[in-house]
């Protein structure tokens, strides 16, 4: 089986946003949302020691994806090849996955009120093509491939020391790796650290209080009726009406 991943070579990226545009046009992503982004950070330092960094991001297709756990209906699921996808027929647009995602990779598409996000261009890669953002990148800064194949370029780059955007608090096994030789990645990590997955109040009440409460209530009524029916069986049916 394959395990798809992407390496972003920050040394090569020229912040041209071509990947973002390719993605937007391929999937008709409405402004101001995106499946795939280039966030330009403000310049840092004093001339001539100045640096300007871009955060190139997309869905991390995490190994232990919090969005998959949060989805109430199972519309968001992880394929066997590691790609996290959304079944639009089953999505009810509740946004629990948006609250759970550490990377802000999801949005509700106002056109159909369902959640949308990067799916590694699953329709393209099944036809042997590269994802749109990878195919369009003028600098070859995005490298896509199979981590299960040790001969693939992503495997080699990950082995050579590409890093994930993880913190001590949040590490859910993201599959987007960053390569950089100018100490740029720590700047990105400081500006866009992964968020702790959040469960909204109604759902935490549901799982912690309401569900156990209703299990007890239903169990109680079942036991009560079991006792009543057992008593009825012991007593037997009377011949005379009332």
């Amino acid at each position, binding site marked *: 089986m394959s395990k798809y991943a992407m390496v972003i070579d920050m040394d090569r990226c020229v912040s041209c946003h071509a990947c973002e545009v390719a993605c937007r046009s391929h999937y008709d992503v409405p402004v101001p949302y995106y499946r795939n982004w280039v966030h330009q950070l403000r310049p840092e330092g004093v001339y001539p020691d100045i640096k300007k960094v871009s955060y190139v991001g997309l869905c991390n297709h995490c190994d232990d994806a919090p969005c998959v756990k949060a989805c109430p*209906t199972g519309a968001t699921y992880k394929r066997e090849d590691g790609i996290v996808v959304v079944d639009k027929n089953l999505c*009810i647009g509740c*946004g629990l996955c948006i609250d759970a995602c550490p990377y802000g990779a999801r949005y509700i598409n106002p056109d159909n009120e369902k959640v949308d996000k990067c799916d590694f261009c699953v329709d393209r890669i099944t036809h042997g093509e590269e994802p749109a953002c990878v195919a369009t990148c003028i600098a070859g800064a995005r490298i896509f491939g199979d981590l299960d194949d040790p001969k693939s370029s992503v495997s080699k780059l990950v082995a050579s020391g590409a890093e994930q955007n993880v913190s001590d608090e949040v590490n859910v096994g993201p599959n987007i790796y960053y390569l950089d030789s100018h100490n740029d990645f720590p700047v990105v990590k400081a500006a866009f650290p992964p968020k702790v997955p959040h469960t909204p109040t109604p759902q935490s009440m549901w799982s912690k209080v*309401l569900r156990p409460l209703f299990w007890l*209530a239903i169990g109680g009524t079942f036991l009560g009726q079991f006792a009543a*029916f057992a008593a*009825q069986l012991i007593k037997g049916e009377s011949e005379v009406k009332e």
Partner: protein
Amino acid sequence: MGLSTSKLNEDIILDHDLLKSHRRLTFEEKRILANRVMKKHGVAGVTLHWVNAISWFLLIATGVALLSATYLKFAPDWYLDMMEGIFGNKGAMLHFHIAVGIFWVLTLLLYGVFGFKNYLLDFIKHDLTLDKDDIRWFPAKVKNLMGKLSNYNMPAQGTYNAGQKAYAVIVAISTIALIITGPVMAFHIGSITVIQWAMMIHFVATMSVFTGVFVHVYMAALFPEERPAFFSMITGKVNELYAYLHHYKWWKEIKNEEHLFFKEELQKDGILLPELEECKNIKDHIVSAKVYNLEGEQL
């Protein structure tokens, strides 16, 4: 009150709240009552009950199977797999759930809009409103179940007893909550915060009804004393003995009305029990009744 029903004076008879329950019948009286029937539900009520029951069954069966997140789900994995197998995929199941939900809401609206005057108002007034006898019924029922209070000393009950009314109140509130929260989720009305709260309220409303529905079904289908109620949901009728023993206040009300018009007939049938003789001042009892002759003139 230490009075037995057969010795009640007229003042007390006219005060429903102080009406004691039925007395012990003679064998002959039982035989007469058991062989007579009374109409309990109209065709509209019976139809609505079964449409509602089938809709609830389909909606709960699919709704519970739609919840698959480990921290929210209510049904075991094998059930989710089974339902997915029946429907082919869960997207189809979601659409089925929404379609049945729309059908259910439309049925209730039909009943609520066109039957507003004849059915809904009556339902709210008689079946959802608990009077003093109903409030007294709850502690009395506990004593009755513990064997400390006989059936003959229970507070008299109307068409539905207080337990049934309390459950009807839960069902009515839950139904309103479901009619609001369902479309919020199905048609994405409001922000995701609104939808998240709607999901939780939808769950609570469903589970409140689901908890009680086992008691409802058990009582109707298996519990011997209430079994005539089950058949009344098919034929619309109950035998008078059941009505007398379980819904005395309702039985008395109907008999009083009949007494007004068919006194001789009832007497011929031997149905004129002492209870009815007590209630001579029938005009005081049925305050709002208007009687018309065949030409439409008020008498």
